[in-house]
């Protein structure tokens, strides 16, 4: 049976010349798992929102959508609420009530079910999702991953026919994200609910999906099984390639007539069947360390805990960051990475050990000395920085206490806007920008302080691969101007590609520090997909480009 049928759907936002959706035609069968991918702003969310009329944005719409054979607009609100489940992006904002059990009951209360039925449905959901341990807790005590799982469970409690998820894992760390996606897969396989999911991180979703839809500029460019999508994109040489899983990207860079691999396992097989000779020599380091480089940030046997009787968060951390490097700290969740950053920027103070910036202890800097022309910090949430109504005013505000003429100020703003490529967005409200653009605007704000050291906390969170590559480019520009970058990230692929030095953080301190090549080729689990796929052939190849290069040379 057909679940959704979309016929000739086009859509304009009010006062916009550009079609946000252009002639969309697609039929979705019941029980299918559909993944929608594409760059930010390609119309993914707009399309998904059209599938639930109560969330559909205002604007001019042509074409029709049918749900189970009936026009979607004729469906009454009650049916719509229970049959079409919709999970949004931000785990925190979707939660309405203060207790886990109340949140699970929220939708059922709206439908007007009686106490006994609600009790049963909640019990079912809690058991299915494994929530029973934190059933009576306050939602404020939950982790991000648990919150998103709760959002999913509270939708599933209404027993929908279709589950729509709009970038549900973009705010989660990789482990919570894969747990979440596994649950979605389980719902699809075991209950038979139709799943329509939009995602940036395709590594895990792609192999799960029955069909993948690739969108660009409001149009569907490919809609096929994931394998065929890989093969067809290769023929079209589409720039969508950068957001595909590693296996597909590597496949795309190598001439062959083989079927497209999706997972690491299939990727290994694919490389094997090419008949390549193992060789380590194709890949050399991006650049040699300029020795003896100056040490900019130095932590010496630092210990930190939040309360006197609390647990140690940072345990004997020693770290040196050299000048003009992109230094990445990677590691699991809750190992203290972010806390380590707060020690360097002076928000928290260690109870033992010293933190030195340019050889001077951090506690001896005054606030002004520390944060102008010296240390810049980009927070995880760019929204925490925006204060004005337009990006331009917001950037000018950073210069308000400097004695510069109007002209000099606007020159500076334009210069930095050009550097981070947001010149065309200067007149917009910061909140109207996409996640990636917000990140860039926030970075511009921090850069106006002309920092020599830049600290970034999870800079790639929620960004698509295009933005990641752009961000990497910006960081490279900065270090060529003599800025030092220290970043903390979960994103192994990003660090492998752009970092000069990588450190592994575990249990409150740095376990090892090395160049990305040495670092990732030495690990067997904590390494990039490309490396896991090709390590038996090319030990040093850690990025997709490395693997493609090695393959094409041998």
């Amino acid at each position, binding site marked *: 049976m057909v679940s959704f049928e979309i016929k000739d759907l086009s859509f304009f936002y009010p006062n916009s010349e550009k079609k946000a959706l252009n002639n969309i035609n697609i039929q979705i069968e019941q029980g299918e798992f559909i993944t929608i991918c594409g760059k930010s702003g390609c119309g993914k969310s707009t399309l998904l929102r059209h599938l*639930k009329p*109560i969330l559909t944005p205002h604007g001019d719409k042509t074409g029709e959508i049918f749900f189970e054979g009936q026009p979607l607009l004729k469906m009454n*609100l*009650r049916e719509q*609420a229970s049959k079409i*489940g919709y999970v*949004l*992006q*931000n785990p*925190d*904002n*979707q*939660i*309405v*009530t*203060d*207790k886990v059990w*109340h949140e699970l009951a*929220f*939708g*059922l*209360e*709206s*439908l*007007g*079910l009686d*106490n006994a039925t*609600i*009790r049963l449905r*909640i019990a079912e959901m809690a058991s299915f999702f494994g929530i029973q341990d934190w059933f009576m807790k*306050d*939602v*404020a005590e939950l982790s991000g991953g648990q919150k998103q799982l709760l*959002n999913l469970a509270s*939708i599933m409690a*209404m027993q929908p026919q279709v589950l729509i998820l709009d970038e549900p894992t973009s705010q989660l760390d990789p482990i919570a994200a894969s747990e979440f996606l596994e649950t979605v897969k389980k719902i699809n396989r075991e209950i038979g609910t139709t799943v329509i999911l939009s995602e940036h991180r395709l590594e895990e979703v792609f192999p799960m999906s029955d069909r993948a839809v690739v969108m660009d500029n409001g149009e569907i460019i490919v809609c096929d099984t994931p394998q065929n999508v890989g093969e067809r994109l290769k023929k079209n040489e589409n720039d969508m390639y950068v957001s595909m899983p590693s296996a597909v990207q590597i496949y795309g860079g190598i001439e062959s007539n083989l079927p497209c691999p999706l997972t690491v396992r299939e990727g290994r097989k694919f490389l094997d069947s090419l008949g390549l000779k193992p060789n380590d020599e194709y890949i050399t380091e991006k650049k040699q360390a300029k020795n003896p480089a100056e040490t900019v940030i130095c932590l010496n046997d630092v210990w930190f805990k939040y309360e006197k009787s609390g647990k140690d968060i940072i345990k004997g951390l020693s770290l040196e960051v050299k000048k003009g490097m992109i230094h990445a700290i990677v590691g699991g969740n809750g190992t203290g990475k972010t806390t380590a950053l*707060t020690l360097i*920027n002076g*928000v928290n103070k260690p109870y033992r050990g010293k933190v030195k910036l340019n050889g001077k202890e951090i506690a001896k800097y005054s*606030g*002004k000395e*520390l*944060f*102008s022309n010296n*240390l*810049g*910090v980009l*927070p*995880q*949430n760019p*929204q*925490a*920085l*925006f*204060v004005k109504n337009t990006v331009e005013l917001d950037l000018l505000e*950073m210069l308000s206490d400097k004695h510069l003429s109007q002209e000099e100020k606007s020159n500076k703003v334009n210069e930095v806007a050009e550097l981070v490529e947001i010149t065309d967005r200067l007149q917009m409200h910061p909140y109207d920008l996409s996640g990636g653009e917000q990140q860039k605007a926030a970075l511009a*704000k*921090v850069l106006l*302080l002309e920092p020599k050291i830049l*600290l970034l906390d999870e800079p790639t969170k929620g960004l698509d691969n295009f933005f990641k590559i752009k961000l990497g480019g910006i960081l490279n520009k900065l270090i060529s101007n003599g800025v030092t970058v220290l970043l903390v990230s979960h994103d192994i692929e990003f660090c492998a590609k752009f970092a000069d030095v990588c450190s592994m953080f575990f249990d409150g301190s740095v376990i090892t520090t090395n160049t990305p090549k040495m670092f990732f080729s030495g690990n067997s689990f904590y390494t990039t997909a490309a490396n896991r796929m090709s390590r038996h052939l090319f030990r040093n190849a850690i990025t997709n480009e490395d693997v493609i290069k090695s393959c094409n040379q041998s």
Partner: protein
Amino acid sequence: MKDTFSGLHPIVNFTYFTAVILFSMFFMHPVFLGFSLVSALIYSIYLNGIKAAKFNFLYMLPLLLLVALINPLFNHEGVTILLFINDNPITYESIIYGIASATMFISVIIWFSCYNSVVTSDKFIYLFGKIIPSLSLILSMTLRFVPKFKAQIKVISNAQKCIGRDVSNGNVLQRARNGIKIISILITWALENSIETADSMKCRGYGLKGRTSFSNYRFDKRDKSVLGTICGLILLMIFGMVLGENTIDYFPSIIFKEITIISAIVYIGYAALLLIPVALNIMEDIKWYHLKSKI
């Protein structure tokens, strides 16, 4: 220690505390005051252990003495004059009244501390949600916002600190300006986020007719029998009140009813009412003791 009484239905908890706190406030008869204070002490120590005992002796006892002493200094009514201080009479009645009102004051405070640990916020929300369903949702959403805003303020203030614009940076004027900026960011952010919250509510059918209010509580046989006992005892108290068994006149001279069989029954009834939670706990303990010894 796990309190058995807390496990009962919120209506039972609430009826009990309303009755006990009101009676403790209005029954100024020494016997009733004594019962109330002793039961409140026992129950609070049962609920909160050493912490409650410490609180009661370190703060409540001095407070009791203070209130008892202050009253005769300012209240000069009463016929039995004991002595004069600066031409002001200190009367026997005002001393007794001071002790009585101090006892009343202290026991009500201790009862409220018990109330606080038994009637938790979700029980309260549940009770008032029954009367006004949308109120319970509003309360629940508000309680969700408090920790959320707290966390966000921290994030914002840290982020601002790192660009040198926190409340700890600059002179007084700048600090104030930075503080206002942080609040302004918080509000903008909260409004922006609330759009998504509203979407999430709409998704789950908020606004449909006939919304129900779910609760985790069930009213079972045990609740019925305890509530019945409480109501019976409350009626007995009202009966006693009508007969004047639990009233007392302090001024101009102390007058109260003679102790008869009827007044004895009312006294015992009052003690029974006050000690219901403690009795339930003791019964439970005995039951467990037997269950354990059988194994």
